[in-house]
């Protein structure tokens, strides 16, 4: 069995390496993008292999899906003129430097101990008190909820930053009938799957981010075929749904602090309900923000 494992791991590692090299060093930019998307998918396999299904889900939806769309649409606006940098001796020279650095780094990290980290053990022990059963969700929404709040804020901020730009218009050609029909089927499906992942996140892999990313992917698909309604920033409802996640999160933090329990300390009886509320709000915000972040243009955002 061990040999099979080694072959599998080795193949995965080689695949990752080859795809990364393709993404970095392809002369054609288009190919580099395609290699990068494939790399995202293989990385999702690696996460699953290393026992992190939450990450595999997130990587597949966010890393490969959304980033892929982003890169392809960026390719449309930024023509493929670039080469790798001119000096012929530079890649070789820096390549040797990289190799030396790698040897040094690997030597330094080689002795890292086996066994789980202290914080990880503490987290596993504390899961029963957190209000959810799945350890990763417990970490994200209870033990380290402050990180998560800031992270939701990062998504919001990226969108706010995008609002400042004068973007090229996004126009899509009319979609062909088969694509339309398939999108009509797939978009509701991804919404359904997103809601399922959110619900399941309490006791199994899944949660707000994976769910938000999936729903965003569905929205994005509708957008590409021209079926999605516009989500203009000028509309109150749109702004509300984008802001509701961080706002509810922050209000929960402030409320718990003023109730005396301390910043983001959820009372045990309430923690499950509070976490669910926060997750639903955060998912809404993340889904809409990501969809707009990838697929909107200035007409929609800058009013």
């Amino acid at each position: 069995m061990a040999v099979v494992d080694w072959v599998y791991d080795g193949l995965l590692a080689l695949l990752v390496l080859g795809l990364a090299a393709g993404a970095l060093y392809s002369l054609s930019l288009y190919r580099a993008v395609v290699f990068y998307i494939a790399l995202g998918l293989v990385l999702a396999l690696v996460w699953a292999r290393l026992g992190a299904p939450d990450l595999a889900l997130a990587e597949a939806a966010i890393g490969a899906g959304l980033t892929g769309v982003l890169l392809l649409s960026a390719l449309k606006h930024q023509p493929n003129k670039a080469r790798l940098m001119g000096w012929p001796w530079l890649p070789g020279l820096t390549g040797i430097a990289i190799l030396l650095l790698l040897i040094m780094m690997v030597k330094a990290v080689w002795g890292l101990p086996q066994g789980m980290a202290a914080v990880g053990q503490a987290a596993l022990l504390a899961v029963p008190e957190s209000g959810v059963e799945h350890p990763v969700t417990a970490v994200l929404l209870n033990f380290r909820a402050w990180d998560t709040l800031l992270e939701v804020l990062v998504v919001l901020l990226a969108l706010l930053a995008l609002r400042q730009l004068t973007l090229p218009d996004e126009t899509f050609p009319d979609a062909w009938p088969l694509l339309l029909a398939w999108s009509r089927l797939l978009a509701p499906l991804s919404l359904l799957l997103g809601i399922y992942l959110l619900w399941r996140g309490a006791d199994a892999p899944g949660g707000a981010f994976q769910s938000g990313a999936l729903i965003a992917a569905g929205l994005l698909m509708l957008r590409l075929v021209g079926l999605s309604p516009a989500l203009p920033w000028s509309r109150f409802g749109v702004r509300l749904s984008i802001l509701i996640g961080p706002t509810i999160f922050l209000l929960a933090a402030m409320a718990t602090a003023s109730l005396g329990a301390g910043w983001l300390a959820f009372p045990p009886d309430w923690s499950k309900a509070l976490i669910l509320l926060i997750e639903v709000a955060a998912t809404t915000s993340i889904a809409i923000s990501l969809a707009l972040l990838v697929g909107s243009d200035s007409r929609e955002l800058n009013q």
Partner: protein
Amino acid sequence: MIEFTAILAWPFLLAGAFFFIAGTLGVLRFPDIYSRLHAVTKADTLGLGLTVIGLGLLSGSLRTTLLMILVWLLVMASGATACQLLARYERERPQVEDENGGR
């Protein structure tokens, strides 16, 4: 009983693997985009289908099998759509020599 299904599963798995390998070879070796598409969708449909049957027999659980069949149906549908889109894009694209695949 379990052993019997397990033995039955292997031919399916091997056949599935064969179609995947053949499809990959096809993508790499076939001359134009249409035949490459043909090869790759074959791999998706047949290869994955056979693998799903094999794995279903191995798992011995109805729920898992149904789930995998659902996955297969989705992959097949998206493969078919993507294939049609690519072929149509190729046909309607202005025919210029472009090594980099267009845009």
